[in-house]
């Protein structure tokens, strides 16, 4: 009796297992899409892409694998353990540029997508600047879905009008305005530094201002030395800027700090153009924008993209998803929600708002430089250490020590100084 009980237990376990595999093999097919888009406009943008994909391929089930966390901090950790453990998601979000090339392409984790770029005609509709940052050794490695601009100064129009001010073109003007605003009891520059990267983002734009497009880009290739007096000047300027920032910046993420601007308590902020999406989601429209002082004519760019990892389980489904991602329809649907501009230049501009239209114009005529805090300009190790140095500088603004640290960080990243 006892034995037969054990036997039946064993049999039922086997049955369950068999049914499980059966059910699994009967599924029509899935695609697992990995990203860190969980907030406001970005999640809606992703959903818009899913909707198109579902319409075209109704049999395929989409697994939306998101890991929340600003700038993908936690998502990237999960992604790395999965990739190194031989369990890659079918496709994943990655910043185009060094983050894509140095972390995943050079190390042999990705499949090239050159054939897809040619058959879909993307080489003709995407600008060279963006094609360059997804290529390595003559191949294309990921499909860019959008372009963001990082060097934007946002301001509260009402405050500027009330005080008879014009948005600053230079840092001299910026500090003049900041002094006037401070006298009025208004926070001149709002910033939230809780996640650790926001201060470095602002500093990146100051570097561009002080070194120019070529000098700034050279920092990441070794053509500009980090001991350059331009870097010293940028640190001096940034140090002075920090004195005009809301003192409680450590309690906020970037978006929480922008509440000050919406409430009319803060006047200006420097951040990428996801701010536009944030303002819209808060139904705030009375904002103005100009390039960060002394960076007019320069476009500090970053781009989100998706690639094809080697050994993914549903290769055909991924190819189809990438086709949707690169299509005119897909790029329009996504970027309308996300607040960025499409990587393709042949989209219908009338669909987009004033801000996005102005960015599209700048994108065509400006000099394009890669953003460092958002993965385009330097390898992840360098970015992490750069971010840490600037984070410290905000609390301990010692210019000499910081510049030395920046030189060391560059040397460790393998760029001779």
């Amino acid at each position, binding site marked *: 009796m006892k034995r037969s009980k054990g036997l039946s237990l064993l049999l039922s376990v086997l049955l369950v297992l068999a049914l499980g595999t059966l059910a699994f093999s009967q599924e029509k097919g899935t695609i697992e899409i990995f990203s860190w888009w969980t907030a406001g406009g970005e999640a809606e943008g992703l959903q818009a892409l899913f909707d198109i994909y579902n319409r075209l391929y109704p049999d395929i089930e989409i697994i939306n694998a998101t890991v929340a966390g600003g700038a993908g901090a936690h998502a*990237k950790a999960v992604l790395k353990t999965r990739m190194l453990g031989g369990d890659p998601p079918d496709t994943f979000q990655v910043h185009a540029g060094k983050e894509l090339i140095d972390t995943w392409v050079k190390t042999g984790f990705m499949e090239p997508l050159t054939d897809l770029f040619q058959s879909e005609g993307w080489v003709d509709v995407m600008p060279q600047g963006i094609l360059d940052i997804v290529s390595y050794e003559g191949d294309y490695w990921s499909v860019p879905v959008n372009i963001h601009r990082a060097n934007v100064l946002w301001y509260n129009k009402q405050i500027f009008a009330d005080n008879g001010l014009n948005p600053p073109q230079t840092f001299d003007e910026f500090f003049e305005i900041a002094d006037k605003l401070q006298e009025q009891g208004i926070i001149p520059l709002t910033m939230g530094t809780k*996640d650790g990267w926001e201060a470095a983002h602002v500093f990146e734009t100051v570097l561009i201002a002080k070194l120019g497009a070529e000098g700034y880009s050279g920092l990441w290739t070794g053509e500009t030395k980090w001991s350059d007096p331009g870097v010293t000047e940028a640190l001096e300027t940034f140090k002075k800027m920090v004195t005009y920032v809301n003192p409680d910046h*450590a*309690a906020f993420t970037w978006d929480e700090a922008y509440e000050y601007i919406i409430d009319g308590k803060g006047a200006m902020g420097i951040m990428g153009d996801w701010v536009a999406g944030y303002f819209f989601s808060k139904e705030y429209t009375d904002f103005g924008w100009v390039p960060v002082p002394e960076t007019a004519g320069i476009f500090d760019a970053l781009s989100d993209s998706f690639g094809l990892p080697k050994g993914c389980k549903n290769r055909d489904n991924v190819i189809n998803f990438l086709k949707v991602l690169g299509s005119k329809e897909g790029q329009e649907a996504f970027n309308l929600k996300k607040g960025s501009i499409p990587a393709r230049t042949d989209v219908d501009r009338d669909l987009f708002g004033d801000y996005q239209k102005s960015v599209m114009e700048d994108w065509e005529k400006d000099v394009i430089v890669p953003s460092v805090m958002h993965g385009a300009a330097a390898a992840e190790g360098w970015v*992490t*250490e750069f971010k840490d140095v600037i984070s*410290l500088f*905000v609390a301990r603004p010692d210019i000499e020590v910081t510049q030395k640290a920046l030189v060391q960080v560059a040397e460790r990243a393998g760029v001779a100084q």
Partner: protein
Amino acid sequence: MKKTRGEKILTFLFILPSVILIAVFVYGFIGWTGWISLTKWKDVVPDFTFVGFKNYIDLFHNLRFQIGLKNILVFTVLFLVVSIAIGLLLAILLDRKVRFENVFRSIYLFPMAISFIVTGVVWRWMLNPGTATTGSLGINMLLDKIGLGFLKSGWYTDPNVGIKAVVIPAVWQMSGYVMAMYLAGIRGIPQELSEAAQVDGASNWQVYRYIILPLLQPITLGAVIILTHISLKIFDLVVAMTGAGVGFSCDVPALFMYDTTFRGNFFAQGAAIATILLIFVAILIIPYLRHGLREGS
């Protein structure tokens, strides 16, 4: 009863699977981490070139690591002293045969059942100092309302407070556990000892000072060990509550380890931090284990 040879082999066979599993998945990986910390692996692709103790030397020159070490020291000392003081006090009070002892005991012990992540999020809100826009929030608002406004602080947003603000939720969570340990210890002391002292005319204070406290020494040692190893490994509470803070004022080595390994791809450096943390914990635990083993035999 002496074991036969067959029984000995059987015993050995029974513990063999767990010995193998622990050898591989605990000690094997500790050894692996130690080995990685001596290589120059700093990419998603492993690079096992041997570099000796370079990673360790670099680490001790790293400002963020130095700050983290200082923070973990401050955190550990404050966390230990305050948790043990509060735990002991609660245990002594509960031992006074109060009514509803069970209820109080559960209330004090409950926080321990919560994950540090939950504690961290809740205390992040409670210790949010508030701004000019919102006015005081959380604890600061409470202090305002009860007329203790001068005690208001920027808490974790103030670089001078930083990690000390994280001590508050850690103590809140763990002091109940210390209380439970002490309460069990006090209950384990034979009544006759304190009664005899009282007959000899000892005051309550003297009974605690000269009889109970000395007899609680092993408990204190146990509490110190447990709390210190929790404190050295602290990660989840800091991540959920503050992150690295202004100028790394809330940073701890475990958080740096996560950052440098998974954001920066410095796998060797991450392994070196892990090894240093292991050594710290080992310095503490090994004498305790040896002490315990000697007493056991």
